[in-house]
């Protein structure tokens, strides 16, 4: 094994030249180690510590503990419910909502990606792709506020509905979380469209025509031919959207109704309102591990291998 590694290394340097090889190896190492692994390890470390005033850090009380994780489940000792109803509920609701946003996004983006990849031709396809990209020139916060304007009490939709005489009183889209789901769904359209587009684009048109020639209906062509072929793209799109939706902060902050809390907001509160970094870190780790477990579980359910996603 060491021999092959040495051989690979030599080949790598020979192929790319010493300068490029060094840049890539050092660059990638720094990226992974300094920017990803070490901070995450620090977070893991934090999550297993007590929340101590600065003076006591490093003192005899600074020992490892699972208090923060237990707090997530049981809350404060002497809690009448016996468990931390608020946090667990928000956590569960956040994951469900993220799954919903992902599914909603897929339903929205699959037809767009299919149209771009297999139907639209030449200049028209480019115009469409561009019109998907341009809105992302506007930053996330502004986009979120734009949705507030659209869905607000005296926003665009309510005004139009009232003008048309369809409703008398404004519908509270914000409280109903319609604005939040729409905003989150919209924020990740590109992340869903492009992996899908990539996958569908490489499908041989003759496959679709062959299925059609054999009498297949449109839904069957998609179910049996296009979607199985695009599975790697579907997986990577859904993974990205799910991960980002469950970890979103700005959109829930701006578009969420007064009664709806996103789990990331609780994490944020842990860090910056209670200044309880260990608890914040523990909550962040809980979210991260749960999301990864869900993604891996889904991949197993749909029989997708890790290697396929990178294709």
């Amino acid at each position, binding site marked *: 094994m060491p021999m092959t590694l040495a051989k690979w290394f030599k080949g790598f340097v020979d192929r790319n030249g010493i300068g490029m090889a060094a840049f890539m190896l050092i660059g990638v190492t720094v990226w992974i180690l300094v920017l990803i692994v070490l901070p995450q390890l620090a977070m893991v470390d934090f999550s297993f510590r007590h929340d101590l005033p600065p003076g006591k850090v490093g003192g005899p009380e600074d020992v490892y503990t699972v208090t923060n994780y237990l707090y997530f489940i049981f809350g404060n000792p002497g809690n009448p419910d016996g468990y931390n109803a608020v946090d667990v509920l928000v956590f569960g609701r956040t994951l469900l909502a993220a799954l919903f946003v992902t599914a909603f996004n897929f339903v929205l983006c699959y037809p767009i990606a299919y149209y771009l990849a297999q139907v639209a031709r030449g200049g028209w396809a480019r115009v469409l792709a561009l019109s998907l990209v341009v809105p992302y020139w506007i930053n996330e916060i502004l986009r979120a506020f734009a949705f507030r304007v659209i869905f607000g009490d005296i926003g665009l939709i309510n005004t139009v509905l009232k003008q048309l005489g369809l409703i008398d009183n404004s519908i509270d889209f914000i409280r109903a979380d319609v604005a939040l789901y729409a905003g989150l769904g919209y924020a990740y359209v590109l992340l869903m469209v492009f992996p899908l587009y990539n996958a569908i684009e490489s499908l041989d048109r003759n496959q679709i025509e062959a299925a059609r*020639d054999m009498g297949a209906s449109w839904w069957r062509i998609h179910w049996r031919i296009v979607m199985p072929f695009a599975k790697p793209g579907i997986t990577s799109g859904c993974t990205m959207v799910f991960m980002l939706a469950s970890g979103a902060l700005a959109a829930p902050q701006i578009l969420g109704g007064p009664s709806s809390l996103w789990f990331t907001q609780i994490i944020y509160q842990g860090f910056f309102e209670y200044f309880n970094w260990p608890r914040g870190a523990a909550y962040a780790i809980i979210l991260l591990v749960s999301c990864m477990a869900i993604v891996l579980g889904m991949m197993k359910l749909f029989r997708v291998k890790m290697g396929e996603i990178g294709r």
Partner: protein
Amino acid sequence: MKAGVGVELENLWVRFGDFVAVRDASVKIEQGEFFSFLGPSGCGKTTILRTVSGFQEPSEGRVLIGGQNMAGIGPNKRPTALIFQNLALFPLMRVWENIAFSMEVKGHPKEARRKRADELLELIALGDQGDKFVHELSGGQRQRVAVARALAAEPQVLLLDEPLSALDLKLRQHMRTELRAIQKRVGLTFIYITHDQGEALTMSDHVAVMREGVIEQIGDGKTIYGDPATAFVASFVGENNAFAGTVKSIGARHAVIATGVGNLRARIATAARGALKPGDSAMLFIRPEALDIAETGSSGDNRLVGRVVNEEFEGQSSHVFLEGAGGAAIKMSLTNRGGQSRGTGAGTELTLGFDPDLAVALPSGALSAEE
């Protein structure tokens, strides 16, 4: 298995913007026959196939399958099955699932699908390969799976779009025989698209030769080869020595044409009877195998003279390449019997003779660009 039905094209036109892909094509394909459209790439033959299968609507004219007008009927509702040039087998399905896909579409239960797929696999001699994936099969096996998949749809007309073009020569020749045998066994109407005249001639009951969207001739292989209707057909189907000239005199069946290599007599092609007059520009075609070595110094209107440039020995036959008067390229194919030399070494001047009944006179026209 359902019986085959006839297919009729009536004054079919297909236009893409300003481009005319098919120009006034009328063909009557009998039920149960093997019919080929032959022509160079871009001649409109694939467009005709797509029009019959329903992927392309005619701009004008009608397509009738089994006497029924197909206007407005989609590909999934026609009694046709199409075999694509790249076969378009489904890579993520097992071989048997590929074959049974059309039954899945019709909602047959899994056991029935599997049973039927196994029967068809037996028919194509791949009985034990049903659980493999397509990429695990060889080129010829995939070919046969594509045929089985098309047959499983119980079509009355099978459409084949150059399905053999991806195979190597030997396999291609083998598959020709096999396709023809399958066609005879199932009795379906086969419509076959190809640019390979060997394929068209060996397999087909009838061949339509196309050029630039126009059907130039329809006939059986022997007619197409022996009695071409246009200069294009004469030059595209098989090899032919072409000599341009003007008509000197016209007889009942023969014409004498003044060419660069002398005045030559040839049978007037059936399609050109009455169309040639003295003074018209004309083409004369002589097949390489119709030429033979004649007595040196003999002359007449079935003699021409050339200097040997090169000889290719091919075992059973030899091809002699000569240069005639005015630089005309002449090819002569001789059957080899025994090994003795016939004095066809490079540089030799030979007098060649031919039977005027085996030469063809046609009005001038476009020749095949392929050579």
